[in-house]
């Protein structure tokens, strides 16, 4: 389970990356990030220490008939 991202944190993240936010866009960004982080938290917690992004390309090639 993850904690939610509050709108002020989302606004700070956008601002730090040069993106001007409004209260509405910060709220939407916070809601969006909280939702997807919550849905993926369990799967991320099960990742092995050694799993890395390049494992995908290997799996793609290995999975071919």
């Amino acid at each position, binding site marked *: 389970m993850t904690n939610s*991202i509050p709108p002020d944190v*989302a606004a700070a*993240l*956008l601002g730090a*990356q*040069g*993106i*001007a*936010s409004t209260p509405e*866009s910060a709220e*939407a*960004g*916070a*809601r*969006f*990030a909280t*939702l*997807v*982080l*919550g*849905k*993926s938290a*369990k*799967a*991320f917690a*099960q*990742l*092995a220490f050694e*799993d*890395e*992004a*390049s*494992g*995908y*390309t*290997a*799996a*793609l*090639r*290995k*999975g*071919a*008939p």
Partner: protein
Amino acid sequence: MNDSAILELSCAGLARAIRDKQVSAAKAMEATLARAQAVQPKLNAFLRIDTDLALDAARLADRDLARGHLRGPLHGVPMAHKDMYYREGVASSYGGRIGASRPAPSTATALARLDAAGAIQFGVLNMAECAFGPTGHNYHYGHCRNAWNPEYITGGSSSGSATAVAARATYAALGSDTGGSIRLPASFCGASGIKPTYGRVSRAGAMPLSFSMDTVGPLARTVEDCALILSALAGADARDPLAEAREVPDYLAQMRRSAAGLTIGKPRQYFYDGCDAEIAALMEASLETFRSLGATVVEVDLPDVDAWNAAATMIISSEAASVHGNWLRTRPHEYSAQVRARLEQGFAIPAAAYIDSLRLRGVALREFSERVFSKVDVLHAPVVAFQTPGIAETDVGGGPTMAALLARLTRLTRPGNFLGVPALSLQAGFTKAGMPVGMQLLGRPFDEAALFALGHAYQGATDFHRKAPAL
């Protein structure tokens, strides 16, 4: 052959007719251009039609053929493409204003390969702005409309590609699929479309959205057309380091093998959650057709697809935010409210979560292969679990209901992008309201051939793909 008969031919059928000199490329182009002009006011499918250039190119193709020079398997076939494939010296709009003043430095590999196969591009097609929208709404150039009923959405982002194919206003069209953008419009408009395995087709010269998920593929009238066009598109490309070097199979030959002996999986979880009863019945009927063709159908259990969908969303959002970051900082007003709002959301995703999403992909694909592809050759599922919505009811702009609507639309397509496996969308019938319904077949990585074999056999036993909308 009169214009109506020419327009009823498939892409493969027209290529044969031109080769056999039953119809000239110029005559086919004239018929196509007239059809495109005729349906444009109703569908808003085209962003540009290059009449004079296309006719000149078609006449040249006829002269080549008269001299005995067949350029390739698509010699003289008219095509229009989603306006995100670069043509040297020409600006692609990306369905918005942001790219419209940026002439391309070189031609997309996909276009170059279709040129080399003999196809003739006669225009560019409407699309969701920046390929970042699954409905077919476009706030810059006007909403694209479904050929089966212009009050309904086309689906997106390859909106113009699907509705133009359905309307017989192009023989085929390139689309792109990052979260469902080939399969959704193919399903809503009654076309066939193949999202190839990630890396099977070069992305060089295609507008990027999410470089880890973007795929290039065709929408066409038949599965055979998809196989024919993918044969021209697929293969290694020095301009795209992720384009796979493995040999491209003879898709047309493999497409003709029997469906008998192939095993199809029906998912027990996820894909039928809350599914409309009419759509579920059409899916079951299509499975029955596959059984009658000799395929075996078994039920399969799936892993936690919801988590994969969330991870896919994080990858697409983060990469799209990065790709568009410079323009979002300097020219944010040139995006529509919806696309700008969606792009901005990507900046709220923590970097570690983005990387975790990428790490999860390999784990997910291994798990899916073990659970599903150890038991079946292909997974069968609906493309969308609900009936085609209207344009007005889904015109939500960047408002508070946007996220839920868009997530609902891509819920069944996005897992295929996360896994990167090939997925073929083809017609499974019509609702009582007369709108097409699509199924998707997901295969093992680089096994597009199995999808084509099943899809071609299915279209040999059904006639949904032959029906044309009354426009």
